[in-house]
């Protein structure tokens, strides 16, 4: 097969990157993915998918958690196995289709949960596992990046604004999020039913609640965090963080609500 200059350049870049890997970081658990923070970790996983030309099964491990996916032609065909952390229903064994927005949202929840687990990520590569009928095209890197980026775009940096620092600390715990700034919805992530519930709460319920609170409670001040356990869809905790004209509505598992308070305090009053 003849290669053009662009192909050669691509191969040279890939070989250069491979030679930079520290061989001492290859363990029985696989090759180490050296990345810290939710965004860089998701990007590192995307890079591994992007580097996979022939059909392979990529299995990522963090401690006792692992996630295995079938990748071919730089596209993610689907997830074949995941364990050691909360896995949304209906993803494993399902071929990916970018038109299926509900499924793509579920992959965002899955990957942010996995990439948010503390510890080193290791990668092992194996023979491809057939998924579906074998005639799927899967999702491209660009489509995955669009789906996964809303949480990955929160930079893990000392220069983060308090809202971004707060969200960054919540890595993997957010089920859904709706961020509003000066009355306009800026971003949203998560399952459609959760996002719809957050949107309804924002447009119909929060303003009268805030007004009633302001009228009756002289001791309330912003920035503030309000949490109602069980008020979100599927009995999740509803969290509303208010700061500087911005409102962030979240759903998290009820068991994580106290942690949300801790992280908010640590960001607000370091």
């Amino acid at each position: 097969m003849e290669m053009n200059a662009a192909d050669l350049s691509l191969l040279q870049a890939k070989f250069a990157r491979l030679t930079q890997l520290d061989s001492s970081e290859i363990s029985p658990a696989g090759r180490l993915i050296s990345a810290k923070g939710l965004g860089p970790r998701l990007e590192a996983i995307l890079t591994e998918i992007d580097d996979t030309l022939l059909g392979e099964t990529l299995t990522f491990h963090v401690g006792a958690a692992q996630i295995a996916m079938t990748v071919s032609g730089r596209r993610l065909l689907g997830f074949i196995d995941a364990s050691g952390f909360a896995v949304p229903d209906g993803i494993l064994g399902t071929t990916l289709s970018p038109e299926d927005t509900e499924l793509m949202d579920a992959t965002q929840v899955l990957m942010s949960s996995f990439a948010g687990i503390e510890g080193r990520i290791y990668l092992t590569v194996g023979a491809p596992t057939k998924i579906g009928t074998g005639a799927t095209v899967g999702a491209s890197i660009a489509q995955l990046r669009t789906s996964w980026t809303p949480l990955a775009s929160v930079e893990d940096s000392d220069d983060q604004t308090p809202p971004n620092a707060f969200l960054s600390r919540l890595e993997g715990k957010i089920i859904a999020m709706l961020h509003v700034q000066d009355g306009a919805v800026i971003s949203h992530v998560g399952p459609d039913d959760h996002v719809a519930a957050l949107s309804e709460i924002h447009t119909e319920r929060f303003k009268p609640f805030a007004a009633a609170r302001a009228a009756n409670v002289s001791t309330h001040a912003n920035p503030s965090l309000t949490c109602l356990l069980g008020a979100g869809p599927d009995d999740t905790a509803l969290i509303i963080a208010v700061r500087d004209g911005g409102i962030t509505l979240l759903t998290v598992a009820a068991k994580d609500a106290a942690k949300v308070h801790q992280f908010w305090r640590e960001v607000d009053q370091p």
Partner: protein
Amino acid sequence: MVADQLDALCAEFSNCITVAFADLATQMVLVTNSTSRLRREVLNELCVESGLTLGSDEQTRLGHKTVSVAFTASPNQTKVFLRATDEPDDILFCACNPDIDLEAFLPAAQSCLLKISGGAA
């Protein structure tokens, strides 16, 4: 005695400054811990805020249903609101320092309310 239960909760959690047992139907604060220094007006406001935050059958505020556990944090204070499961008008509200450890405090406060509301106090 109910006051003893409230005092014990504050003794266990030094960041809990005031804890009060109240009746949501009448918006009346019934008992507070003995070391509370909050004025009656502030206690009444906290009682109103409890009803707003937890919601009621007549006016569910934020969520789509009334809840039994809620908290609000601001720079200077963290407030906790609890509703008894079997007696929805029995509530406990707590005014705490901002750094209260909610992971430990919430179950202890729920246990305290259960004892009071269930008549075991």
